[in-house]
């Protein structure tokens, strides 16, 4: 529902009647909801098309107007966490004039310097578009939850008459997680006597403040058994994981609760916060024929 802001000064009212330029209608502006965000790279874009009517004189339908979007809380386009307004997702809002193809990046609380093209009335067509853009990295960096802000779109005609309508922008950030920084583990050459053991440090990112997650390790053997193979020959492996509290044995396909996931960027800021250790026992190695053995471990992390 558009709100008409009437100027109180009698002089401006007089000007209105002389020029007859005014935004007279904002129609069809609805909330912009990104929904539950699916992770991906790049940017997220949502559009909302609507109509702005600006009448000049008695019948012209190309009356100029300026636009502004103002947050009703704060002075930015940020989308605020419903549970913690100190946490927010930056947004960029652009206005597009669908009649002239003019695209105008908006500054919060500031009318666009350029003028848009209005319709004489809003009947069955749109001439305006709001484009809201979010960066995936910004969405991934905030804790899961609902993020929203209420904005006021305003159109100002040349007679300085302003019509406004409010709309919400919303997005839902789900619990997100990422495992990275994995490297191969070369256990090296069996010497005939000693067990072989190697480790790899890696990163687990989570946007959940708790930092808790489960880690499931699967090998390439039957039932996910951990092993390396050379043709049909196999050597079993022991696998342990460490979230910073010490290595604990892992059973194939069994999720193991872990802690200490980082929320410092999806690559943990280049550091590591977990490790996997792999061992092959001498008793098994002496039974193995000579050769190069290799296998794959799959590590899956999930938020708790």
């Amino acid at each position, binding site marked *: 529902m558009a709100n008409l802001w009437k100027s109180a000064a009698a002089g401006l009212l007089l000007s209105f009647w002389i020029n007859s330029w005014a935004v007279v209608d904002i129609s069809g502006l609805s909330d912009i909801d990104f929904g539950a965000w699916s992770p991906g790279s790049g940017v997220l874009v949502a559009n909302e098309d609507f109509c702005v009517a600006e009448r000049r004189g008695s019948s012209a339908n190309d009356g100029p107007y300026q636009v502004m979007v103002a947050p009703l809380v704060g002075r930015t386009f940020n989308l605020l966490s419903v549970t913690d307004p100190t946490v927010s997702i930056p947004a960029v809002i652009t206005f597009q004039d669908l009649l002239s193809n003019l695209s105008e990046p908006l500054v919060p609380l500031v009318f666009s310097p350029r003028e848009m093209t209005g319709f004489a009335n809003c009947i069955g067509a749109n001439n305006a578009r709001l484009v809201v853009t979010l960066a995936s990295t910004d969405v991934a960096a905030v804790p899961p939850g609902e993020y929203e802000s209420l904005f006021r779109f305003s159109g100002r005609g040349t007679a300085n008459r302003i019509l406004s309508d409010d709309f919400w922008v919303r997005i839902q950030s789900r619990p997100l997680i990422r495992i990275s920084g994995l490297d191969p583990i070369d256990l090296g050459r069996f010497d005939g006597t000693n067990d072989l053991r190697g480790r790899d440090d890696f990163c687990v990112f989570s946007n959940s403040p708790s930092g808790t997650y489960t880690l499931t390790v699967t090998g390439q053997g039957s039932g996910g058994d951990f092993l390396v193979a050379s043709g049909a020959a196999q050597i079993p492996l022991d696998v342990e994981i460490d979230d910073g509290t010490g290595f604990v044995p892992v059973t194939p396909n069994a999720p193991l609760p872990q802690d200490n996931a980082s929320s410092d960027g*999806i690559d943990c800021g280049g550091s590591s916060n977990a490790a996997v250790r792999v061992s092959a026992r001498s008793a098994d190695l*002496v039974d193995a024929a000579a050769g190069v053995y290799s296998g794959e471990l799959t590590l899956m992390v999930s938020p708790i």
Partner: protein
Amino acid sequence: MKGCTHWKRGLAIGVVAASAVTGSALVNAATQGTVGTSSTGTLDVSILVPDLVLVNNLDDVALTYAPAGGDVVASESFCIWATPGTLYTLSISSVTPTGTPTFQAQGAGSSVQYTVDFDDQVAGATWEAVTEGATLDNGAAGYTGANGATPGCVTDNARLRITAAEAGNLDAADAGVYLDTLTLLVQPL
């Protein structure tokens, strides 16, 4: 003066671990997870098991010669272990100069000549004459060692036979102790 001639020999243990797998041909990789409601990454694990061999359970051999007592012969059984599927070859060298026909044990002023035979089993009579420094390879087929378990043998699986022939120079040797040290080199074929 002829008398009771006896001589002893010591056998040194030679353990050789060599690999027929040269270098590492490993192609390792890892994949990183993507951001999502769950995330999966992989890493490769690799191991190089070389051709390994082990000779052990060797003991010193002492032989005693009594005049006119005939040839002196003794055998020593021992163990050769190898990685499963790995065959081995054997060569034997000694610390003394090569004798006639093959080996000699050294005394204070003279030596005793002797021969060495090898059998890759502890039963039967498949002796092969050993030439010092030469490689025995079972006609290029190699020999089969024990394998599995802890490197070694539950029971010995090879033996040496040492023979000093009376008709050689044994009956002419001075009384005393004659020593030699044999080194057995076992290698993967």
